[in-house]
């Protein structure tokens, strides 16, 4: 793992995914997205969203979907505000 911040964030998303993808009662992507929303500071969320926009390398399966959910949540929050 490199020290670059975005790589680190991608790594963290996938690591969170490694927990949620085994939870039978929760959609993995939703689980990851909620976890990130709850625990990540806005600048970290912004960075991961930008990374998704730029192609989202390293974000696969539920991890990618989770960041998409996060994007939608953020957009919704913005339009509600």
């Amino acid at each position, binding site marked *: 793992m490199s020290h670059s911040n975005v790589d680190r964030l991608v790594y963290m998303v996938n690591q969170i995914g490694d927990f949620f993808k085994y*939870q039978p009662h929760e959609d993995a992507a939703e689980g990851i997205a909620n976890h990130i929303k709850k625990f990540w500071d806005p*600048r970290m969320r912004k960075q991961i969203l930008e990374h998704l926009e730029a192609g989202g390398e390293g974000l696969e399966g539920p991890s990618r979907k989770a960041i998409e959910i996060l994007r939608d949540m953020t957009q919704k929050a913005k339009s509600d505000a």
Partner: protein
Amino acid sequence: MSLIEEIDYGTPRSKSETMVTLTIDGKEVTVPEGTSVMRAAMEAGTEIPKLCATDMLESFGSCRLCLIEIEGRNGTPASCTTLVAEGMAVHTQTERLKRLRKGVMELYISEHPLDCLTCSANGDCELQDMSGAVGLREVRYGYDGKKHPNPGIDASNPYFTYEPSKCIVCSRCVRACEEVQGTFALTIAGRGFDSVVSPSMQEPFMESECVSCGACVQACPTATLNEKSVIDIGTPEHSVVTTCAYCGVGCTFKAEMRGEEVVRMLPYKDGKANRGHSCVKGRFAWGYASHKDRITTPMIRENINDPWREVSWEEAIQFAADKFKAIQAKHGRSSIGGITSSRCTNEETFLVQKLVRAAFGNNNVDTCARVCHSPTGYGLNTTYGTSAGTQDFDSIEYSDVVLVIGANPTDGHPVFGSRMKKRLREGAKLIVADPRQIDLVRSPHVEADFHMQLKPGTNVALLTSLAHVVVTEGLVNEDFVRERCDWDEFQDWAAFAAEERNSPEAMEKYTGVPAETVRGAARLYATGGNAAIYYGLGVTEHSQGSTTVMAIANLAMATGNIGREGVGVNPLRGQNNVQGSCDMGSFPHEFPGYRHVSTDTVRETFESMWGRELDSEPGLRIPNMMDAAIDGSFKGMYIQGEDILQSDPDTKHMIAGLSAMECVVVQDLFLVETADFAHVFLPGSTFLEKNGTFTNAERRIQPVRKVMAPKNGYEDWEITQMLANAMGYPMHYEHPSEIMDEIAALTPKFAGVTFKKLDEEGSIQWPCNEEAPNGTPVMHVDGFVRGKGKFVVTEYVPTDEKSGPRFPLLLTTGRILSQYNVGAQTRRTANSEWHPEDLLEIHPFDAETRGIRDGDWVKLSSRSGETALRAQVSERMAPGVVYTTFHHPKTQANVVTTDFSDWATNCPEYKVTAVQVMPSNGPTEWQEEYDEFSRKSRRIEEAPTVVAAE
């Protein structure tokens, strides 16, 4: 103020609920069955003379001073060994008894040196007191009877002396070492007049197994075992009850004083965590408070390469506030933050997070719990609904099976370790899961029934395989699960645990633990009666730390071991106030009382009380702060009482982060490692110099009381308050009790806590509110806090930190009894005599293949960095695993630890690092450079000499 004299009842309290009534000297007394006559008399206010009895120890019956007469019985039995009986009529003072007692005392005194006037225990000696009590006026045998052998004084222990010529051979010390401490370091050697107390094989104390807990010194009725501080200073004249500031056990002490000088710290028998016991840290290692390295004048500098400049408090505070404000103006509100300290009081911690949230206007506040027990918070909160440990320490007395996972209580939590060992000696069974053969696995009169010596990083695999056995062998407590837990979730979990790939046989390839051992341990845990789990940082500090905590919680629920005395899930917290600092809202996503910052109703309560709009978004955690600092979006921080540079992982990354910041404010006692990168140094105060509360690992809130004025001029909360005011956010507390009132008003779990109540009760275990006005010793009694207990599937995901050809060994880290955390305090006491440097423990096999001998310098390297230290060849580790501590900045063990962390909380993976170990000649170049930098960074500019005007 006067000296607090605790009553010595002579023998321990009986736990029986059946009551017995007798008369003592004509007075009717009712006491529990099993009470000694001596204790019953004392409870009725009659003190029977005694020498060999004391209520911390079982009665022994050797001195024959405590004789009594009982109507209808012959002879004069010893009251300490005679138990009460219904209708018994006892006489404690008759002509015959007086005569006999005088005779006994006469013999003792004829054997004892009579230098009372110059003896260090003059005025604090039970032998003196008893001579007075029995009215001894002459000694018929003269004073020159055969004296005990006098081999001189053993002053080898840095804190107490042993002077055998004063010994009356009452055995109290020997029994204290056995019964209270559980070390068995002392024996009585020789016979009759020649008998003498002897550490181990007649060695000096320092060379024996003695761990310097002080129990023997406290038990000794004479000056034979005496604190050196008492010998130096004299006996104390007043005392104040307070709480140890070292570990999460939270022992209560009497600080015994002469004026503003501490004479000694004596464990307080009424202390509910320690019940009168102590360890070498709290008992003896308080001298750092007046160590010459202590900084007491504020200092500032523009650049970390400049020398420090001493300034007034006003100037230092203004300098910090101006910098912080300028940073925020330029880089935005979220560009600064703070770190609360688990060594500071609840009130101080509360204030720091308030400063960050209300004055800084963001939620960038975190605490050292990030690097220790944050996974406990996540794991227990998810499964049970609250992050706290479930039991009080007394609960261990009711356990039949004790499962210790990734904890080393005899070193990390010594007083609780002693209480645990006592229960184990009484017959409770022990299971240990640890990569290292910790002392508990085999020590005098304690032996683990199972030691699962797992490979570092495989906790989840091991716990899931234990669950597999419980589920597949029909050991689930189905009634409990059906009543208390979510049944659907349980079934999913049970199906997962039952899968063949989770069996001990299948998991053995990961864990290295023989399947039969796992099966035996699981059966014992599930069927051995009350089973309790105690765990430590060996559980949390992993990439799957939070998952491991949930796996533990699952196991306790599945076997019904939760919600009563003797069972439960108990995180052993590291620092004295880790529990408290978490409770007080030190995490970036939570207000005090563990409520998320995005919850509008909660935030509104805080907003109306604090008069500021608060941020609804979570802030940065410590590792994220460092990342953001390197990235340029985080520029300033206020660090109260933590040395993140030494304690946090991946030192080089930490250095890069700290060096990138524009204003680092460190508030501490000493120029700690982090201070090398600071621009403002605010001198802090010690626990002896402040009022407040600490909360220990059993959720017990305990008072900390000021015994001397702060040498730096202010208590730590006052400094935070000054900074808040300078930042433009007004704070005007006069006393920490007002801060506690605010905490209680804002936090439902603390609603009933006040300083007044703490003074009355001594301590309170939260939750304390209308439903539980006197606090809550055991949690989840009638149901889980979250409603139904939640089973969570715990898939084992191996860490990415793997050994390989370059780094073939696994390093795990830990701590040692005599040193505390980064060692800033204990290294500045004589405790360093036990642990002068960090050592690398390595198995003989690994040592031999590398040509390493015991005591050699070795280079320890990982992909993060390298450091050098001396090797200790030891079979405590399995081959392939090495171990070290992180108490000394010279070693900086964290140079080698990596940035891998727990998936849920970013708690660093201290317990697994792939490393290589090679012979070396001494410190590495990096260590030498760092040392040089550190020396430079600590220069303090000479104050200009002011020439007085003529």
